[in-house]
């Protein structure tokens, strides 16, 4: 009896296993071919931010298959294929992050080689709906990448904590909507002489909260802005680069907690400012720093570096020499 019971039990277990395998195979067959071997990862530049501190994330698309895959050309949300969602802990619904710009480009979908990776780093702290993280607390952040038809690839979910900090964020979010928007734009664009409310707001934050991470970003953005001219059509004039002032600010920046993209921007701005100040050797050291930072990146920082070396007159001249 025991033996027969054992046989029946084994047979039932086999049936269950077969059923599970079959359902798994069906699910696999239903998964769109184009996303089966693709993996999307989202990684914030750090785990905990102070309220008001700019949040940057890196998204990586990996091909785990053995053959190349056709993928979206660009992972930046401004290209319109990648969506970033932010969900406060305990909330029912996630919020879509809206990038500050969206563009049309004439690059055909690219092919991602087997075991290949493409990535992008971008800010998610400010966009079309204003500031993203206006409250302290825990948040989950994830991305989806649109595929053909309804197929969308979802990334890993990254937890982010927004801590109280030392009051800089509370000061920012107590200002008018216009002040907050101009400040957000200036920090995303790292320029904008016409954004006078942003300058006034950030000057006050630097004065009141000199050690705040937001102040560090404000000093960086101002330094980057002053390292190059600004073509201000609102007053019909080009504001020349101010290399001495830019160097003073950029050398004050604490780089320890900055994402690699902003370290790259700082190195390039230092190279530009040193070159404009006639300090060629110092400029070359900073350009070498920028190139080694970009060399560690698969794609995102390389594209930024290439663009700067092509379109920035000072850096393009240095690169030629």
């Amino acid at each position, binding site marked *: 009896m025991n033996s027969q019971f054992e046989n029946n039990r084994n047979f039932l277990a086999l049936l269950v296993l077969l059923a599970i395998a079959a359902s798994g195979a069906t699910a696999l067959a239903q998964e769109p071919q184009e996303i089966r071997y693709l993996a999307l990862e989202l990684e914030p530049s750090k785990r905990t931010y102070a309220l008001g501190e700019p949040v940057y994330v890196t998204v990586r698309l990996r091909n785990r298959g053995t053959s190349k895959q056709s993928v979206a*050309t*660009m992972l*930046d949300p*401004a*290209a*319109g*294929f990648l*969506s970033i*969602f932010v969900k406060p802990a305990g909330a029912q*619904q*996630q*919020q*879509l992050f*809206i*990038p*500050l*710009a*969206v*563009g*049309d*480009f*004439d*690059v*055909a*979908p690219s092919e991602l080689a087997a075991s290949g990776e493409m990535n992008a780093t*971008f800010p998610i702290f400010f*966009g*079309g*709906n*204003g500031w993203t993280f206006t409250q302290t607390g825990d948040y989950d952040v994830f991305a*989806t990448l*649109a595929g053909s038809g309804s197929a*969308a690839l979802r990334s890993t979910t990254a937890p982010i904590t927004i801590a109280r900090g030392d009051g800089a964020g509370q000061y920012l979010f107590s200002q008018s909507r216009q002040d907050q*928007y101009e400040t957000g*734009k200036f920090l995303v*664009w790292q*320029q*904008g002489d*016409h*954004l006078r409310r942003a300058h006034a707001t950030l000057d006050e934050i630097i004065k009141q909260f000199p050690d705040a991470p937001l102040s560090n970003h404000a000093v960086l953005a101002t330094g980057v802005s002053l390292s190059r*001219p*600004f*073509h*201000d*059509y*609102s*007053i*019909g*004039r*080009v504001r*020349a680069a101010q290399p001495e002032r830019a160097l003073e600010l950029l050398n004050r920046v604490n780089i320890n907690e900055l994402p690699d993209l902003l370290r790259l921007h700082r190195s390039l701005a230092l190279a530009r400012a040193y070159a404009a100040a006639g300090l060629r050797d110092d400029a070359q050291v900073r350009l070498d720093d920028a190139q080694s930072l970009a060399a560690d990146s698969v794609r995102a920082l390389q*594209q*930024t570096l290439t*663009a*700067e070396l*092509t*379109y920035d*007159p000072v850096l393009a001249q240095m690169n030629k020499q």
Partner: protein
Amino acid sequence: MRNKPHARFALTMMMFAGIALLSGCVTTHVEMDRMTGTAFPTEQTLDGRDWTLESIFLEAGHIIDVDEDDTNIAPLRDGSTQQQCITDAELETVEIANRASPVTPTSFACGAGIFRGTCTRYEAYGIVVDHVGQCFGSCRSSLLGCMYDTTDRSAFSLYFQNSTVSSDGQRYLRTTAHELGHAFNLHHPDGSGSETLMNTTGTVGNSFTYTFSTDSEEHLQEHDAQCRFPGTGAWFSVTDDHATRHGNATCP
């Protein structure tokens, strides 16, 4: 009794006139400016039909009025050289200096008699610059157009240093309609099908039409005005049914 059919006909015609008046009462004014050395998009023939920006949007049920305004905005020069790439912040200053139309819609009394009502004119602004564009954080020659500030969906730029924009009239008109589509709160995933307007130019390749997809037309014709017209809110603030395609519902 004999007059009754005539009266009914007259009433029907008046109703049609009223509907036409009311539907024509909601328009979008598109102010277009350009820098010296550039050109506005021109009428194009595709698939045996002549197309303009106006006819593209009329096909989707929208009356737009394209106003080619400034034609000689001089690019600012730093010394003797003109910058190759214009940033999003600099574009905003171009708009501040040259935009004559308001961002928000204007309402005004219109019609007469029993058809007297309130008409609404929405506003969008397009600028053709003699540069390559930034838009993705760094300058790229592959960029044709950009909505550089999504906070109010009211303005877009076209980059004449992009070789497609400067030398391919058909794609240039397509990109202009595409960018204006963003101002009407349409998104790249709304370009269902492979040839319609909200697909990126790089995606459609050599096969494209001047028509919006069914999803896009549904949005353009049926969704709430504050989620649809330029200058009424942030990009991606869409109605629930539109949101099911994008995973979000935020229309106020």
